[in-house]
């Protein structure tokens, strides 16, 4: 039971981690504001659905579209100049960006949790001697499906290949006539979409509140554990963190979940500095 609920959370971590990995892969930027992009995405969805009263599918599409735009906007405004800059600048800018996003969200929608939206039915099913809420199952399936779709996109489509190429070297790609700017825009946009979908799922299960951004805090170690250049690794890392957080919380109490994730991160980094699926630097001897 604990493991199953951990898996469900893990899928969300995996999805957000995927966005994080995507941005790092293409633009070599560590986007510490990924969690807050999730927050923004979820609130924007709430806005369309609850405040404006638009139908569900419409709100979903609009929210996803705005997530895409938000990603591109963030890239344009803040990150263009950061490519190639020292790590410390990158970390500082993205962390402050997350604060800006949180402030923006609070400014527009207040700091109290928002009115709940029912997307999934409240029913539950019995599997063996466990009771699972259908809601959570749907959420898990959706998150996993999105993550898988993105992974397939990278592996098998032309655009996905171009993104992997940009991850290898910007100048090389430019010499081949490929617009690196456009690919970077797209990669941030897709990361925005991943964050938004994650936000929508989380918001509908946990409620639309400011603490949703904490998920970002856990998705980042997931990305590191899986390997910063590997989308598959991000998803698996997410699942791992989800399960371990769940198990630790179950046995040691809620507060122990988050530190446990980071302890696992440290342990993995000691043995596998590139993460489980990260791309090692290719050295020919």
């Amino acid at each position, binding site marked *: 039971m604990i493991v199953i609920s951990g898996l469900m959370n893990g899928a969300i971590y995996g999805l957000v981690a995927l966005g994080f990995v995507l941005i790092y892969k293409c633009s070599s930027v560590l986007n510490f504001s990924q969690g807050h992009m999730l927050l923004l995405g979820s609130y924007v969805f709430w806005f369309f659905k609850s405040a404006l009263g638009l139908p569900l599918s419409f709100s979903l599409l609009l929210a996803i579209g705005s997530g895409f735009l938000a990603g591109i906007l963030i890239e344009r405004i803040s990150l263009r100049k950061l490519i190639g800059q020292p790590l410390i600048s990158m970390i500082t800018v993205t962390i402050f960006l997350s604060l800006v996003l949180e402030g923006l969200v609070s400014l527009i929608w207040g700091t109290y949790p928002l009115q709940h939206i029912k997307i999934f039915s409240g029913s539950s099913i019995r599997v063996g001697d466990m009771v699972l809420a259908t809601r959570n199952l749907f959420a898990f399936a959706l998150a996993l499906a999105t993550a898988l779709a993105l992974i397939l996109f990278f592996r098998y489509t032309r655009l996905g290949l171009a993104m992997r190429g940009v991850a290898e070297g910007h100048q090389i790609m*430019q010499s081949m*006539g490929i617009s690196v700017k456009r690919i970077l825009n797209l990669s941030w946009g897709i990361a925005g979409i991943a964050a938004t979908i994650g936000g929508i799922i989380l918001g509908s299960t946990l409620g639309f509140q400011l603490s949703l951004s904490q998920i970002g805090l856990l998705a980042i170690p997931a990305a590191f554990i899986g390997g910063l250049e590997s989308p598959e690794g991000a998803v698996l890392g997410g699942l791992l963190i989800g399960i371990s957080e769940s198990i630790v919380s179950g046995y040691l109490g809620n507060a122990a979940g988050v530190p446990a994730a980071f302890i696992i991160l440290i342990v993995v980094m000691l043995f596998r500095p590139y993460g489980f699926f990260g791309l090692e630097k290719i050295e020919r001897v």
Partner: protein
Amino acid sequence: MLKLNNVEVKYAGVILVLRGVSLEIRDGTIVSLLGSNGAGKTTTLKAISGLLHTELGEVTAGSIEYDGGRIDKLDPEQIAKTGVIQVMEDRQVLEHLTVEENLRLGGYIRRNGNIRKDLDMVYDYFPRLRERRTAISGYLSGGEQQMVVMGRAMMAHPKILLLDEPSMGLAPLLVEEIYAIIKRFNTEEKTSILIVEQNAKAALEISEYAYVLENGRVVLDGPSSKLADNEDIKEFYLGLSKLGEKKSYREVKHYKRRKRWL
């Protein structure tokens, strides 16, 4: 036809690298650009293909024309679309991608092309790549990596191919193989080729016309056969002493021998 008119290139606004370079590459010909290290050869190529701005370089004077239109102020993507494709020096493959993925990306700009046919064309030129098509490019040997980067450029069906030191770091036999392929590509596809080389012998053998660059200026140019016979080229670039033999360092008197163009 590609024409450079008195091109001046500066890095970071202060480092003057090209001081008025004028070149001409007629359609379908192979032209070589010779010079020792630091002469400005790679900068010339990057000025043509538009890659200078990522290194804080810019063309501050002069113009670069291709097919009658100016290309010196364009983005590298736009320049590549006009058919000017550069193969950068140092065999820069996309390391973690396979050979075939590298080639596919080479053909990316040909939106309406037949990728399968283009891949077959490249594998026809480089049979070794066909054998190694699923190998991770970073682990290939130097010669194979050079084939990958050249194949990548060929996938884009260039009208003019800019090759930056194709023979660098390769075994002599492999250099011959690669040069034979370059010649074949020029003959079969009618692509103009500008080869930047330090290996003057190989470059002069394959090209019809050659320019010699020193300190950012063209100091000598002419048909390759004439340059190969030129005394100064023989002495300073081909390593032959006046008598056509290898240089004897015992008899060198630097103060006596000067390049005639200085």
